[in-house]
């Protein structure tokens, strides 16, 4: 077969692949745009109700259930005390904080022991979910703070530490937060409000997550949100706004919440215990818990409402380097693949409502398989160019169109942030956020796809799930004169 014959034969195929991939990218961005716009509408509506949600009544009501805040911690000396300051300053009538020191090799435990005068106590389990790492000791604060610290042997899984905490939790609601996260003072109250107002139907609730890197903090309180000078962090700020705020607001409206972030999620303890706690082998234990609860409760015909409270913010540390970001995203992708495979019977199944028909197919087609399609598209373009069958003018126009859709999506996200929340008071922060949103489409998105692809490959090869700890840098403490006037 001559080269011309080969080119003639392969040309229609490559052209079809190129157009399909382009169509896929545009449809993905348009779907995200739809989610963003729907979420934005909800946020605008919520904003109008500010001050009329009855938070004071929830705070004062004897019907408000007590909450156990569960915090898994592994080598968290950089921010553990700030996190505890925030968690122990919650405006909430009754709560306890249970930190599980999961085999830390740094001074995580020593710092807590020193500040809160920890004293050993006898463990008093309230449940028996599976815990593989041995619990070494349980300590309680001697300062009067409602703090319990559990020391255990690490088995390298966050879910194991959380299950250890669940086994000691005493209150009807459990709230899981990360040890590198700062909860806003009314965070617990705003999320628990859903459980207080609708105790029969609500089984889980989550708040939004924002990057804390660069923000000015004081003893665990975010004084002024600011952006980190690192572009990886700035781009993640836009990504978090789009995916963790606006998309989830939309999914929750459609009663199709698939993920309540592990960095800040609240659940009914009795139900979590009933389903056996968190899956010890999952890399996406937060999403796994939501899906397990949904599957179990829908199958049993019991109430299963999951709520998202977009106004509540938990500030968390996000990866600052490509290497750490890569590890995190590979883990997320592998975890998502595990989750979808394990619950494959739910995909497209109307028995599971909007979760089965909308959310799971979306996550399968756009989140999990996205990197595969993008890689195929890239290869196809390269091969087409090599064979001389790529019309560079047409390709440039189509790539430009895809970039324009992506840019519109990013700018819309930042516009919603500005019009609804106006959190970033300095003009340069906003400009940086806009620039990050535009840059996300060039470079970051492609590298991100590569990380996700590797995660998917790890899942397909059934690699042993490994939960890699993220290096922490801690929070930026505000100096008295650090709060520059808004410009």
């Amino acid at each position: 077969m001559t080269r011309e014959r080969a080119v003639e034969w392969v040309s229609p195929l490559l052209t079809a692949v190129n157009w399909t991939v382009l169509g896929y990218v545009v449809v993905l961005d348009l779907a995200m745009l739809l989610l963003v716009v729907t979420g934005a509408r909800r946020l605008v509506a919520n904003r109008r109700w500010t001050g009329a949600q009855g938070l004071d009544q929830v705070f004062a009501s004897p019907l408000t259930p007590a909450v156990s805040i569960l915090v898994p911690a592994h080598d968290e000396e950089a921010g553990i005390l700030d996190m505890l300051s925030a968690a122990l300053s919650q405006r909430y009538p009754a709560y306890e904080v249970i930190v599980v020191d999961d085999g830390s090799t740094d001074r995580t435990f020593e710092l807590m022991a020193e500040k809160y005068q920890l004293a050993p106590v006898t463990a008093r389990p309230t449940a028996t979910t599976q815990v593989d790492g041995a619990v070494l000791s349980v300590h309680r604060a001697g300062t009067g703070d409602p703090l319990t610290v559990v020391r255990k042997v690490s088995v390298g899984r966050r879910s194991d530490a959380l299950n250890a905490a669940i086994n000691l939790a005493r209150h009807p609601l459990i709230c899981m937060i990360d040890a590198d996260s700062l909860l806003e003072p009314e965070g617990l109250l705003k999320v628990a409000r859903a459980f207080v107002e609708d105790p029969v139907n609500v089984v889980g609730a989550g708040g939004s997550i924002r990057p804390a890197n660069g923000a000015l903090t004081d003893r665990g309180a975010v004084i002024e949100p600011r952006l980190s000078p690192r572009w990886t962090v700035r781009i993640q700020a836009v990504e978090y706004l789009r995916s963790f705020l606006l998309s989830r607001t939309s999914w929750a409206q459609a009663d199709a919440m698939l993920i309540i972030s592990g960095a800040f999620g609240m659940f009914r303890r009795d139900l979590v215990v009933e389903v056996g706690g968190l899956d010890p082998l999952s890399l996406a234990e937060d999403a796994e818990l939501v899906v397990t609860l949904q599957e179990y409760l829908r199958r049993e015909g019991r109430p299963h409402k999951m709520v998202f409270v977009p106004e509540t913010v938990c500030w968390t540390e996000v990866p600052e380097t490509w290497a750490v970001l890569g590890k995190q995203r590979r883990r997320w992708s592998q975890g998502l693949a595990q989750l979808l495979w394990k619950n494959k019977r739910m995909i497209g199944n109307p028995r599971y409502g909007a979760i089965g028909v909308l959310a799971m197919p979306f996550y399968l087609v756009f989140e999990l398989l996205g990197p595969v399609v993008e890689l195929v598209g890239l290869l196809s373009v390269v091969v087409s160019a090599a064979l001389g069958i790529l019309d560079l003018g047409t390709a440039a126009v189509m790539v430009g169109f895809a970039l324009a859709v992506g840019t519109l999506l990013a700018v819309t996200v930042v516009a919603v942030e500005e019009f609804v929340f106006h959190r970033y008071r300095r003009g340069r922060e906003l400009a940086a956020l806009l620039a990050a949103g535009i840059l996300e489409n060039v470079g970051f998105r492609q590298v991100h796809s590569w990380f996700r692809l590797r995660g998917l490959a790890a899942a397909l090869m059934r690699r042993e799930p490994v939960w890699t700890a993220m290096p922490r840098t801690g929070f930026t403490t505000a100096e008295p004169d650090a709060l520059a006037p808004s410009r």
Partner: protein
Amino acid sequence: MNAVPGAAMVATTALAALVVLLLLAVAGEHARRNRQVARELARRARLTPLVHDLLDGEPIDGDDALDPLLDEMVLDLLPQLRGSDRDTLTALLLERGVVDRATEELGHRAAWRRGRAVTLLGNAASPRHTPLLAELLGDPVADVRCAAARALGKTGDPAAIGPLLSALVADRPVTAGVVGMAVLDIGTPALPELRRALGAPSTVVQQMAATVLGLHGDPLASHALTTTVADPAAVPELRCAAAEALGRIGMPSATATLCAVLDAGRRPALQRAAATALGRICDPAGLDALVVGLGSPDRDVRATCAEALTASGPAGRRRLAARDSGTDATPAPRPREAQAAR
């Protein structure tokens, strides 16, 4: 395919224009919001002394007195005040026409406007508005219904109890938590109506009444609640709520019924509620049943009985220790939970 790149080019140009417009809008909004925040801070600083003057009963005048922000500041302050200060500010809102304007807004097309008006009337806390607010318990928008329930709670008017309880089982219901908080907000004037509600045809209403009566610790409800707990035909959730309420009320007259429920051993949830109630009542007559409960096949019932014995004072703790050391005469196994619970 030639038409496609052309269309894409046009679409790209349109999208680019949209992006530029959005960027300009964001920049404009950012500048506007910053200016607005700064202006409002300055206005609040100017108006705060006027609010203090109002609370001191002094007349206010000048341009600042006409500032609508003053109304908002007063409304923000109102829920935190009681007594004469609250009355003073409520009278001021009436005088300035704020309450009348809110009443007109109750029929507004936008749900949030109705909701804010309802909240404002709730903060004004006048029983005059009860019928209007009660009507909004049937609003098509759930958020407005909840706001109306909360506002009715703030009025403190016992006439709101009936509509609030009915809202639990209406075609467009208000969630149990919101109704519960509102009924609790009304306070002790609600008790007679709640006692009557224990005989309502709806179990949901009965359950709510039982819970709130328990939280109020109403001794006059004790007899009706005891009857409910003892009634095997009643819905289990209602019996649990009644048992919990009896525990909160703390009358020893309920001990025998609660012991019987604990001994019956058919429903762990009800047994747990009975054990907790016995622990709260602290009646020595309930200790035997709690010690027997330590041998329940249900782990949670055993743990609750151990906790209840611990909560029952020195006598309960002695019985638990005796059971632990094997010197207690009541035949029951020694589960690990009982030891752990101490």
